[in-house]
């Protein structure tokens, strides 16, 4: 199964990746990916905080609320919902469907394209914003940046970034296939994810960001209205988003298999 799907899926990636990153569709992704580093540049320039501990908490808050539930969320939403919908709007999807590649492999290839593009953009953004914040701090902050603890935290943030691209990406790919205008359902998902901190524990478990919270190297401040929950075990925090991505991706490939193209012409 893997042999018959993966090779053609990677061929789709070779056609699609450059367009996803550098084409017209890649521009919003690059802009959203550069927001966090730009913000850190600005914060570093104006704030007087130099203490390592404060910067650690500051970055945790920024990553949780500005990146995970902000720029990354909408960047991934844009990139993945347009993987098929963008081709339909350009009336170019049929070129993929008229090649000797199974529809499932096309869907998988486009998904991998989205994962590679968003992981690249947002991982670089995460690294850049982390380095910029601590690099502009005092000597202790700079030392932390190069220490095992600092590098470990950075690796965790990059890992969560990639996991978020994988999990949200599958959901948004599916939304791009079933919704005429995917931005409304994406906004719905955003509100649910945003509300995660104030939801009861049982309901939190239905939001993806709850599992990312469990993976954060430093807990992010959650505000006075938050209902606190114990973090999920590490394996669940990684496994459940991956499981969600797999199930949704499977359903999306089923949808692509029976997809029709007419663009309203006869």
């Amino acid at each position, binding site marked *: 199964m893997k042999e018959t799907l993966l090779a053609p899926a990677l061929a789709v990636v070779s056609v699609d990746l450059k367009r996803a990153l550098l084409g017209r569709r890649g521009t919003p992704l690059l802009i959203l990916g550069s927001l966090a580093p730009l913000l850190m540049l600005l914060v570093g320039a104006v704030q007087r905080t130099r203490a390592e501990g404060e910067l650690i908490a500051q970055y945790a808050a920024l990553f949780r609320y500005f990146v995970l539930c902000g720029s990354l969320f909408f960047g991934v939403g844009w990139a993945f919902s347009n993987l098929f919908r963008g081709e339909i709007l350009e009336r170019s999807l049929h070129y993929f469907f008229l090649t000797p590649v199974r529809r499932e492999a096309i869907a998988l290839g486009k998904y991998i394209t989205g994962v590679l593009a968003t992981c690249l953009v947002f991982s670089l953004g995460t690294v850049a914003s982390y380095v910029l914040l601590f690099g502009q701090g005092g000597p202790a902050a700079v030392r932390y940046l190069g220490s095992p603890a600092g590098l470990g935290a950075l690796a965790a943030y990059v890992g969560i970034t990639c996991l978020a691209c994988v999990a949200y990406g599958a959901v948004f790919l599916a939304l791009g296939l079933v919704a005429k205008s995917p931005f409304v359902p994406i906004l719905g998902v955003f509100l649910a994810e945003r509300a995660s901190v104030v939801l009861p524990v049982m309901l939190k478990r239905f939001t993806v960001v709850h599992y990312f919270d469990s993976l954060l190297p430093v807990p992010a401040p959650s505000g006075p209205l938050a209902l606190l929950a114990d973090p999920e075990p590490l394996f669940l925090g990684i496994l459940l988003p991956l499981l969600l991505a797999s199930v949704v991706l499977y359903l999306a490939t089923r949808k692509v298999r029976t997809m029709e193209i007419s663009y309203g*012409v*006869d």
Partner: protein
Amino acid sequence: MSREIVFEGVSKFYGEVLGVNRVTIAIPPGITSLVGPNGSGKTTLMNLATGLLQPSKGTISVLGIRPDDPAVLFRKVGYCTQFDSFPIGMTGLSFISSFLRLHGSSKSEADARAEAALQRVGMREAGPRRIAGYSKGMRQRVKLAQAVVHDPEVVLLDEPLNGLDPMARAEVMELFRDLAKNGRHVIISSHILHEVDQLSDRVILVKGGYIVAEGGIHGVRTEVATEPLSVLVRCDRPSYLAARLFSTNHTMEVSIHEDRKGLVVRTLDPEHLYRVLNHAVVADGLEIERVSASDDDVAAVYRYLIEGEGDVH
């Protein structure tokens, strides 16, 4: 393995709107033209054959392959669609080469084959330029190149002559003839009836989602039994011949050319006409320069069957 494209009881509905209904045809190799007005179902038939649409009823096979098996189908099939659209930002060469890589070609092999395909449609020079800067005719030719670059056994071409100037049309039609050699299928949908007539081995007339007639053009024309056939006869004594013809029951109308060197006969029985002509030559020394059926072509069949000037029997 089947050598035909087979539709068996195929219907396609878009909600409550009829696309095609109860289509049963078997298309052998050669050049086949789908002829019919806009919205008649020509594109629907092509999209069904290539899996871009799925039938509401019935089954389709292309050389024995089901359209829902693209991994096998598109090794043998190329489809130049009617959609005048391309992935944004690509050059003609990168467009063809990129999608050829999905056939498993290496980059260098794909580039070489893409260049050869562009050469075949007279677009090699323009290949490195962006498609956005192409004229409609150039875009049409790039699509053609993309449809044939992998040397398919079946080529489907939806309105392939659209946007082409007369010189390009002649070149492209020559390409179609070339493609149809060696037992390949070339399926063309077109409104340019005159050119379809010159090209086609077979014609399929589509109207309102139904197949109205199919077969060799002359055979289809013969099926239009109630319509008189117009035959042009160039000869030295047209008045004499007209008088001979009016003495039979089968001649509906005769008009003599202004140059008095020919006449057009409308007859319900062409066989009888030809017998009269033979007799006039042998018995009366009539000198005939040329005999041709002036409406034994796709345009006439289209007029009778599609535009409702006649009935099919």
